[in-house]
């Protein structure tokens, strides 16, 4: 299926200019997103996935800024726009959901206030009309008796319900893209499953495109269409989700999958990736994974390019696991 492209990111670089030096949190990220598509953006903490999300929203705060690259939403270039232009875009054409639902809603404002203002920031409509739309949005994400809930304060909701409210707020203006930054990490597994189901339905029904940022491979496997694996500010591998998870090309992806406890590998030792993620302030000149990589050799002192290794799939590696790792097990 060929999808119409909604979001096209190419060679995006977001750096933080700190006293200790320049931290290259995002350093040349490229991907594209089609209508109704869910892209899983996977990586450890500090890999730059959250900063990528904020870059797409134009929410990178000093000392950080987008240094170069391009973000095209529906063909329109976003990088280099003035703040006011970003503001009119946020919440209207591209929305975001945050990790911790306990923290994202303002504790001293009622839900209806927080929803109505989100509509009226972009559209000149009456409070009543906005309220009606807020009610519909709550109902759409599966919140019972939305009329009553509108008048409630965030602390009167459970964590899962709050995240639904946050999703409802993101949906209010029917954006083309939603950036979801680990939205289910803080929730119980059962609640997580419910929300994942609803999100999947929404994308399928409305053609909404989504970037799902997470470190949880299981979630990506169940939800995403495609996956991009980030390491030290760069995408090291991307492709269709099943193919990547079954037979990863990149040693890092390989290690990542191997380090997840799994039902059907019981009794086997979990692999672990030795060492720590490198400091973004002092990245090695070559492949940034080389220091931890079992396959690294002299060639890895040079930065590998993201190369297409099979149709629709690429990895940034000089020594990818090719056919030999079809089992997907621990190396």
């Amino acid at each position: 299926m060929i999808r119409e492209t909604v979001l096209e990111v190419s060679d995006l670089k977001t750096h933080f200019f700190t006293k200790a030096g320049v931290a290259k949190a995002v350093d040349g990220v490229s991907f594209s997103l089609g209508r109704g598509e869910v892209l899983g953006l996977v990586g450890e903490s500090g890999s730059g996935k959250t900063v990528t999300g904020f870059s797409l929203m134009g929410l990178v705060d000093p000392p950080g800024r987008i240094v170069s690259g391009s973000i095209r939403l529906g063909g329109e270039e976003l990088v280099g726009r003035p703040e006011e232009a970003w503001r009119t875009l946020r919440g209207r054409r591209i929305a975001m959901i945050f990790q911790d639902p306990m923290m994202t809603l303002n504790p001293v404002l009622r839900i209806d206030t927080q929803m109505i203002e989100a509509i009226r920031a972009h559209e000149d409509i009456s409070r009543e009309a906005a309220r009606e739309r807020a009610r519909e949005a709550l109902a759409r994400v599966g919140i019972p008796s939305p009329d009553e809930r509108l008048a409630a304060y965030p602390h009167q909701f459970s964590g899962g319900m709050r995240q639904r409210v946050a999703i409802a707020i993101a949906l209010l203006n029917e954006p083309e893209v939603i950036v979801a930054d680990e939205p289910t990490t803080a929730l119980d597994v059962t609640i997580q499953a419910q929300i994942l189901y609803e999100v999947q339905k929404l994308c399928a029904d409305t053609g909404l495109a989504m970037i799902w940022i997470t470190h949880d491979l299981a979630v990506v496997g169940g939800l995403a269409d495609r996956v991009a694996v980030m390491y030290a500010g760069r995408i090291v591998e991307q492709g269709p989700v099943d193919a990547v998870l079954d037979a990863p090309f990149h040693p890092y992806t390989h290690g990542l999958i191997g380090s997840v406890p799994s039902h059907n590998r019981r009794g086997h030792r979990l692999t672990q990736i030795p060492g720590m993620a490198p400091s973004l302030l002092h990245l090695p000149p070559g492949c940034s994974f080389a220091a931890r990589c079992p396959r690294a050799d002299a060639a890895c002192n040079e930065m590998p390019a993201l190369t297409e290794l099979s149709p629709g799939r690429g990895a940034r590696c000089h020594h990818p696991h090719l056919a030999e790792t079809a089992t997907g097990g621990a190396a």
Partner: protein
Amino acid sequence: MSVFILRRLLQSALVMVAMAVLVFFGVHLVGDPVYMFITPDMDQADIENVTRALGLDRPIWEQFWIFMTNAVRGNLGQSFIFGEPALGLILQRMPATLELAFAALLMAVVIGIPLGLYAGLYPDGIPAKTIMAGSILGFSLPTFWVGIMMIMIFAVILGWLPSTGRGDTVEVFGLHLSFLTLDGLRHLALPALNLALLKISLVIRLTRAGTREAMFQDYIKFARAKGLSRPRIVGVHLLKNILIPVVTVLGLEFGSLIAFSVVTETIFAWPGMGKLLIEAIQQLDRPIIVAYLVMIVFLFVVINLVVDILYSILDPRVRLGDRGQ
């Protein structure tokens, strides 16, 4: 909730009784006020008459018993100097003190919150650094010294504002108020600013700290992700959150405003109950001292209750907690 209030009231009553006991006996341990009423030509009989008239000849326990029984009826004794009920004198002077304290509170909010907000939003600029240096100075400067400087600059050198008294007052419901006349306002300006200075610094610090903390909160970032304008984010999302600690602290500080008005009233000859207290201390007018104390402890109790109620109005989380219990 009502149990909570009842317990608080009981506690406060105990504190008040304890204070009364401490102060009563403390005050009676030092000096003999009889000597204030004795002239050199008086003989022993005259002195005894004065002592008897003041009730000072009886054993101290009896004096205390009389004091307590009277106190329950709202009679805290007669001022030795004025020969009038002490509580009445205090109540007479209280509106002037309260007016001063409220004016100072208002200034603290009106000046402190915007400055603190600014310093919190743009912490690296020179204006913010100036504001913060000013607030450190406001903390360090003793109130009385600033008051003297104000008088020197604004009253003596520039001659803009008067430095003593309340000016013209208007009577409203039997209370004399200064802030309703221009002359009264001119008289109120310096003492109120003097009293407010410390609280302005406090509010600046609280607001700035609250702003800096809130700006990193997810709910502010989420509000930005919704595409809200900056005025809306600062004016509604931020302000409503930082107002909670500011109002709480300020409410509790109102008592200290009243206490510090002793200093300000003395410098600016503001005829409030603080000035009355200093005069009473210098003249060993015990009943006034005791009455002042009972009054101020009472005020503290009331203030604490009001702040608790205000707090629960501002913070919806507290409101629910009450209902749930």
